């Protein structure tokens, strides 16, 4: 498994870098998903499940952005996807330049889908365009239905919201309808997928969305 050390990009023009990277991906027909969430919301379990379900049909790559360890990249590689571990050197988010360098270090040009597992943080990653075609946000049921009120930017910036650990909803005071309403108020176009990577509930709908997004991307 490869590990790459990334520092913050020197360039000031993150938006321009992001746009250029997005164009490169469009040309190669590769769709990059930027996966953002709190620590412990289940990004890795969700990815593992998606890879298991979709790896037969698509070439999948994963870029793991972590402060330090490589626990997640190891799990992903065991499932057969190609993975690269990007160490952000204490940085709390990925920017477009860092994403580009991580992608180049993967040295794979035949990929259909790439998932960037951003640093576990609801704040800073929302502010930086990584060049992804789709921004996906994960909110897990145990975190609470009030998070859209507290971290509005991330909900505004995301194309789809994945509500994970839906199998545990009976154990928490999580009001699904209230949460959806708060999210839609911030972002009327957002798609919402309640799923459980553990039981498989809702995964089919999410996988269809991913497939359709790839078709649209290549159209």
């Amino acid at each position, binding site marked *: 498994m490869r590990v790459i050390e990334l520092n913050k990009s020197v360039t000031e023009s993150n938006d321009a870098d992001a746009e250029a990277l997005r164009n490169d991906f469009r040309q190669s027909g590769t769709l990059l998903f930027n996966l953002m969430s709190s*620590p*412990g919301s289940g990004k890795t379990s969700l990815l593992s499940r998606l890879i298991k379900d979709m790896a037969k049909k698509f070439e999948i790559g994963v870029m793991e952005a972590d402060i330090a360890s490589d626990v997640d990249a190891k799990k992903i590689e065991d499932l057969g996807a190609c993975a690269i571990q990007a160490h952000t050197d204490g940085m709390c988010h990925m920017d477009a330049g860092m994403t580009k360098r991580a992608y180049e270090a993967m040295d794979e040009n035949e990929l259909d889908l790439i998932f960037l597992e951003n640093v576990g*943080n609801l*704040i800073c990653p929302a*502010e930086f365009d990584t060049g992804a075609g789709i921004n996906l946000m994960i909110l897990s049921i145990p975190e609470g239905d009030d998070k859209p009120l*507290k*971290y*509005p930017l991330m909900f505004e910036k995301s194309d789809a919201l994945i509500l994970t650990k839906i199998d545990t909803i009976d154990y928490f005071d999580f009001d699904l309808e209230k949460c959806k309403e708060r999210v839609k108020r911030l972002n009327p176009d957002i798609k919402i997928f309640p799923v459980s990577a553990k039981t498989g509930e809702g995964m089919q709908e999410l996988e269809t969305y991913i497939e359709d997004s790839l078709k649209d991307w290549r159209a």
Partner: protein
Amino acid sequence: MNKNEIDILEVKSDVIADNDREAAKVRDLLKQKKVFMVNLMASPGAGKTTSLVRTIEALKDKYRIGVIEADVDSDVDAKTVAAAGAKVIQLHTGGACHMDANMTHRGLEGLGLDDLDLVVLENVGNLVCPAEFDVGANKRVAILSVPEGHDKPLKYPLMFTVCDLLMVGKTDVAEVFDFDLAACEEYVKKLNPQIEVIPVSAKTGENFDKWIDWLEAQIESFRQDFDKEKREEDRA
């Protein structure tokens, strides 16, 4: 304080090269006013506010409690905490993902320390950036909730290294999640052998008295040191 009367203060992260010097100033101010401060840090949704409310309920008859709520942009927590009986100030960090010492200093001034014994800073929900900034608090406390997983110390080591105490929260749902408490403790102690680890449920109250006992002991020791220094000064 009426819950409709929340003070809101807009603060931006200052580019102060010497945050540590500012932190020392905060510590001096707290010492001078005989106020003990805790910097409470955790992921979003780990249960900081619920734990704080329960802490206020347990200690409000003994200490006069103030809370600095640091959020990117909202005041939902401040209202909850004010209703529990603490004096509250809401800080808006203007998008910044952590509190630094200067922002904290302004928060303390906004709150006013003359009628307080204990201040809790509820830091921005984030396991990364808040760990890097000494805000001048007497003790740093982190909460890791059971649903987040026992591997978090491996992924966010600095937070667990800088804290004096770790609360493992939401233990009432331990059975629903594959959370290995022993493994978690082992990871944490490897990073920080001195850290206290207390598993609690702020919802059911399970084990919560252990945390309250620890906090009381820290406050009492701080106050005894203060009184002792005062006596020595008076004698001199």
